[in-house]
């Protein structure tokens, strides 16, 4: 964000920040980093149907949302959601499915604006969080994961 713009929308940013603080105080419905129960909260929020597929290193819960977008939540043997993948015509509600990680993601995104305009895939690569989004209007895909939570032997490319 440019300095000029910061001044321009400072007051609105303050409003947005306080709104987010209130949101942050809501009961934890975190999916990424959360437990299996949090997936149920996501399913309700996304108005979707859910199918589950168990694998060797993890279980995948796929929520087919009402807007046509599929969200897949990857659960470790310890019962924690360590990654989320999605694809479909509309972006999923990342505030919901990233849960407690949403602010970290959003802050990193806002800090990304560089010296030139780019219309390209989005990537956040931090020690505690990786988020990658690609595609185009009506066809988005992406993944988010916590590197430290990946079960051993699981590659990031498996998260779809």
């Amino acid at each position: 964000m440019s300095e000029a713009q910061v001044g321009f929308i400072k007051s609105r940013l303050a409003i947005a920040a306080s709104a987010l603080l209130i949101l942050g105080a809501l009961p934890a419905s975190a999916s990424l980093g959360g437990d299996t129960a949090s997936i149920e909260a996501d399913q309700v929020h996304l108005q979707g149907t859910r199918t589950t597929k168990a694998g060797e290193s993890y279980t995948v819960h796929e929520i087919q949302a009402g807007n046509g977008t599929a969200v897949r939540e990857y659960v470790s043997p310890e019962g924690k959601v360590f990654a989320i993948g999605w694809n479909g015509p509309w972006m999923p509600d990342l505030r919901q499915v990233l849960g407690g990680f949403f602010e970290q993601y959003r802050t990193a995104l806002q800090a990304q604006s560089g010296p030139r305009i780019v219309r390209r895939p989005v990537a956040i690569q931090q020690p505690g969080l990786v988020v990658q989004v690609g595609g185009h209007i009506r066809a988005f895909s992406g993944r988010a994961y916590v590197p430290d939570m990946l079960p051993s032997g699981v590659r990031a490319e498996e998260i779809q």
Partner: protein
Amino acid sequence: MRNIRIILCVTACFACTFLIGCGGSSGGSTPANVITTTGSNVAPISVNGGPEGDYADAAFISLTVCVPGTSTCQTVDDVLVDTGSYGLRILSSALTVALPQQKSADGNPVAECLTFLGSYTWGPVQTADVKISGEEASSMPLQVLSDSDFRAPEGCTSSGYPSADTVETLGANGILGVGLFAQDCGSPCPASYNQYFECPSSGCVNIPGSGEPLDQQVVNPVALFATDNNGVIVELPGVSTGGEASLSGSLVFGIGTQSNNALGAAKVYAAPEAAFTTTFDNGTYPQSFIDSGSNALFFENATGIAECGSDASGFYCPAAPVSLSATNEASGVSGAVNFTITDAQAIFNANDFAGDLGGLPIGGSTNYFDWGLPFFFGRNVYVAIDGASTSGGTGPFWAY
């Protein structure tokens, strides 16, 4: 940013002397494409860095916006030409005429949220007569980009993306979406899409039921033209390896409707789902697309092209230009595309705004090859609107 603009003034004049006759590196050894410059259905476009001088591989156009049915008009310059979206969006800050606000069935002002890659646009839907070259779309809904008219609801901000509602964040004064579809949502356009909202004083909420009616949606102006309304041709010259400070070309309206917009030898690639299949380096990408609004070719780095450092993160920076080939296929029609990727950092450092940029298609399931603006260099690209009859068949299709 400002330094770049000053340098651009110098290099732009230098470029004029060698622009004509440059071989299109994207076009390989094929003859240079012919660019139409005259006709009531032809508008000039340029790849020049945009209003802020910081936007490489993006094409811009000027258009006229009028209060419907009046001669109260203004010109809006530096509007991005985007074959990857549908409908016209203009920054509130770039508008000097007051346009009428669209109202919902309940009598509330209508506003729209549209998520692009990396940003979203938000603001009221208003109505205008829009003129480009000799063409006009009357009483056309468009999106006015502004965060301050109405507050964006949570359903609009859940991508986490920043809003593009200033010239600094958009890199343009607006977006002219001339892609494969007429309207930007389709029917139905239910609440779960979080795209159209009505805004009583208590705050913006999703339009209920089947959502915003089709004929009220933000629309590709071409579809509303009286003639030449079945699609567009984007015509840009080739670039020399290493890049150009700027390029000049044309946006031609209509396909096979005038003597200057015949399909000629262009091959038609049907795109019923706004996608075709690209095969590249043993990979198959069934959700591939052509998009003048992507400012590079974005594709899987299967060939091990060097990636840029943090200053140009996500782009490719090969030490020497890399020549590659892919195949596009749709409904039994296929053809090879030869293309070149050059060092993005060198292009940026040279303040060139047209170059063979490439980058990574980051995302969960990388099932696409994004043929961004470099694909258009040295190639006339036809975009036929969904359901429209053309000399090459019924849209939606791309042809080149």
